[in-house]
């Protein structure tokens, strides 16, 4: 087995033309998740109660809404990469394509719902009539 062409070795992208992109993105988001998820667990633990008024008041603050948006971006990208590996390991043939498509619909769709929900809470002034 050869080592490919010299140009190919310089590019370092390998036979899948991806290089270390998937691996590196997973590590990068893992490091971000470490901070964001620890913040999230502390924030959840510090909430005085979990009724509607309390959690809404918490999420409407920029100090919660902004880290939550970053958390959705980083965590959802991270889990999309992780579930991709799961599918690639256990699903073979044409079904794999279907599952990977479903994965993209699930991760992008759920992220869209989450981001919309956070922004709606953050940008809605309570006490003032709105649509």
């Amino acid at each position: 087995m050869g080592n490919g062409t010299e140009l190919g070795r310089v590019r370092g992208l390998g036979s899948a033309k991806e290089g270390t992109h998937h691996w590196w993105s997973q590590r990068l988001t893992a490091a971000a998740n470490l901070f964001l998820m620890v913040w999230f667990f502390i924030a959840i633990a510090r909430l005085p109660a979990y009724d509607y008024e309390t959690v809404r008041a918490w999420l409407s603050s920029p100090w919660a809404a902004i880290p939550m948006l970053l958390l959705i971006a980083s965590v959802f990208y991270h889990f999309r990469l992780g579930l991709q590996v799961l599918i690639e390991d256990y699903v073979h043939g044409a079904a794999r394509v279907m599952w990977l498509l479903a994965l993209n619909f699930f991760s992008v769709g759920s992220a869209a719902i989450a981001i919309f929900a956070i922004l709606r809470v953050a940008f809605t002034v309570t006490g003032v009539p709105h649509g």
Partner: protein
Amino acid sequence: MASPSRTPTARARPLSPHLSVWKPGPAMIVSILHRITGDGMATVGTVVLVWWLAAISGGPASYAPFHYVFMALWGGAIGYLFGIGLTLSFFQHLATGIRHFFLDVGANYDLKGNRAGSIATMVFSVVATAAFWAYLTMVK
């Protein structure tokens, strides 16, 4: 050069060793746990988190079913089940993720250190989960 043993009809090629040929050990267990907890949070955790956020943004009427299912029904049993399960998954995945950062830079591959590190991730996840829920249920 196609020799008979290389044709597609030849005997099955040896596969890479898989779970069944290894004696289970801490490193193997935490590797499997990392995948189970990660993919568990990615599916179950995502549904719970997105439902929670959507329920908050939808107003009191849409938050009510979420609150009922996780915090009122059967004394909040479903909330405890999913909450403790996801907390344990998070701390385990966090600890094994940090373990992977060490392995990524080529550290801690010696047998004793690797074994101790693997066991430490499980001890950490159980202790951290117990501490987190003790705080939620008793201190507050």
